[in-house]
């Protein structure tokens, strides 16, 4: 028996096929239709693993696009799903920092992987993937290459948390001749500062996991570890943690 978890985020839609372990996973851009993207993931997971729809016990939808997934058995918020997913990968995790495309959140878990507290950023892109994307766009840097630029550079001081203000601040920094590398590093420090204050709004307990698309940046992870004076765990499949959690919940659902 299998379960499937689908996480439709603002940027990417992720899917996991699960049978107690991860069998397969897919990430595709959400595009304009979270529903279309999630259906595509469902078809692909079934097709390329040569299983039939009847082999799937439960399909669980999560992410902001979950409301458009009429075909799933249940929808669950990304907060509960991230908790389950991260706990499945490492049962010592008690705190999760998740930075996605349009929001960032911190989740606190008990020793069974249940959510006991969580905080989310307010309706503002500060410290999210969107912030990274917009600011790097000014520098002509692809989000995936951020570490290559930021690593070892002295961070330029970007004081604005607001994406719109930060953008104009970067234009001014470029005008006075600051190097791309320094600004890129400054952008990561800005996200780290915002995450640090979000983390401090709850009781931080070890171990800490860093998930979501933005967690792909090793440099950001290093900056955060230095600030927190704690080790942070990331996973190579950090983007699929929400979908994995959805699949785990679906697998355990009666």
């Amino acid at each position, binding site marked *: 028996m299998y379960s499937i978890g689908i996480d439709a985020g603002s940027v990417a839609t992720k899917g996991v096929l699960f049978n107690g372990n991860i069998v397969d996973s897919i990430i595709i851009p959400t595009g304009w239709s979270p529903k279309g993207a999630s259906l595509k993931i469902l078809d692909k997971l079934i097709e390329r693993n040569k299983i039939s729809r009847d082999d799937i016990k439960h399909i669980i939808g999560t992410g902001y696009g979950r409301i458009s997934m009429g075909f799933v058995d249940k929808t669950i918020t990304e*907060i509960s799903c991230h908790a389950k997913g991260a706990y499945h990968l490492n049962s010592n995790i008690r705190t999760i920092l998740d930075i996605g495309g349009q929001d960032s959140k911190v989740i606190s878990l008990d020793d069974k992987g249940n959510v006991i*507290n969580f905080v989310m950023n*307010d309706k503002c892109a500060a410290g999210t993937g969107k912030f990274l994307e917009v600011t790097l766009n000014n520098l002509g840097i692809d989000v995936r290459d951020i570490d290559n630029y930021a690593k070892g550079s002295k961070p330029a001081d970007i004081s604005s948390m607001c994406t719109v203000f930060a953008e104009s601040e970067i234009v001014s920094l470029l005008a006075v001749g600051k190097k791309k590398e320094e600004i890129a590093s400054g952008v990561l420090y800005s996200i780290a500062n915002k995450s640090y204050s979000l983390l401090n709004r709850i009781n931080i307990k070890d171990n800490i996991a860093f998930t979501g698309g933005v967690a792909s940046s090793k440099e950001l992870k290093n900056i955060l570890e230095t600030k927190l004076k704690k080790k942070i765990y990331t996973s190579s499949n950090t983007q699929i943690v929400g979908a994995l959690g959805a699949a785990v919940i679906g697998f355990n659902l009666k």
Partner: protein
Amino acid sequence: MADYRELWESLDMDLEKHDELCQVLPEFYGDIYMTQEKRPEGMNYFNFVISEIHGLRIKELNEHRKNGKKVFGSFCVFVPDEVILAADGIGVGLCGGSEFWVPDGEKVLPRNMCPLIKASVGAKISGTCPYFQSADMLVGETTCDGKKKAWEILEDYIPMHVMDLPQMKREKDKENFKDEIKIFKEKVEEVTGNKVSAESLKETIKLVNNKRKTLQRLYNTRKAENLPISGKDALLITQVAFYDDTNRFIDKVNELCDELENRIEEKVSVFKEGTPRILLTGTPMAIPNWKMHHLIETSGGAVVCEEACTGTKYFERLVDEDNEDLDSQLRALSERYMGINCACFSPNDGRIDDIIRLYKEYNADGVIYNSLPFCHTYAIEYKKVKDALEKEGIPVIMIETDYSLQDAGQINTRLEAFFEMINMNKELAI
């Protein structure tokens, strides 16, 4: 259909702009309120009040004025209605709860301030709220910096009286507020031309206490395991309490309570079993701000109590009725009003005790701390409330939001996650 346009015109209203409001309200109310299932029949009265919100009640106020009597508009639960009523005046609550008035408020106020103040000022200067237009005098108070300074602007449009509310609760502060009530009484006497006597004040103290007792009776029905009424409906009743005719309101709410108490006997609930019970605490929700209740009750929760000005702060605790002379009556009024645990006081530990007590009394499963943006007193107080609730093992989240409709998706996710967390913990407890 009654045509109130002539009445509105006589109140110097901007009819064209007001019409935009009239276009939206029936649909907005219909979609938010009338779509609820198993609503008590007694809510028909409140459907009536809302349908006639700019009609019948305005007509009543203006008939009262035609007879030479006065209408006082207020913005806060600290303004003593007893005094107004004792001088044969009518008090109406005027806080603005709609985005509709915000742009007009921003014409004269800074943008980055509380939407309640912006909407209230906007409602007056745009001439689109017949209640503001029917008031002979507005009564402000010094509960926060925003309001305090906004009165100075409103003063250019309508006569104002401002009550100085102390910000601490020492003996001398209670004595001060008693003095403030006395000054207010003299003002009311001057405006109405009627003396407030110990006899008339004794009577109106009883009347307003009765209104409080009626609301207490209503809220008691929400302590039942099977909820006979939605939080959204209960909020509406509390909002209407601020401007409806006191005697009629008492009668109608008591009728509704008979029905609700029957429902409790018959175990009728408007929510399905196991729905997380939420205590909402924080800033006031002025009509037609039904946003948080609507979002909570359409994403899997039920509001069982409001620890807010539009909630328990309005009706908990009564004024001592056993005083025969004005001086001791004024002291009794000060005692009751100064007992309200508003975030404008420092310190305000009484509010934390209230929240924990109400959480237990209403068998709540979690607390949602709701704050309007730029409300510093409530936003800062969250820290102390959160720490105290965490110590008690009570789940709590803070949601800061204004009147706009745009952030609903994000709030829904937080609410759903909060309910998932509560349900998960409930399952584990079994």
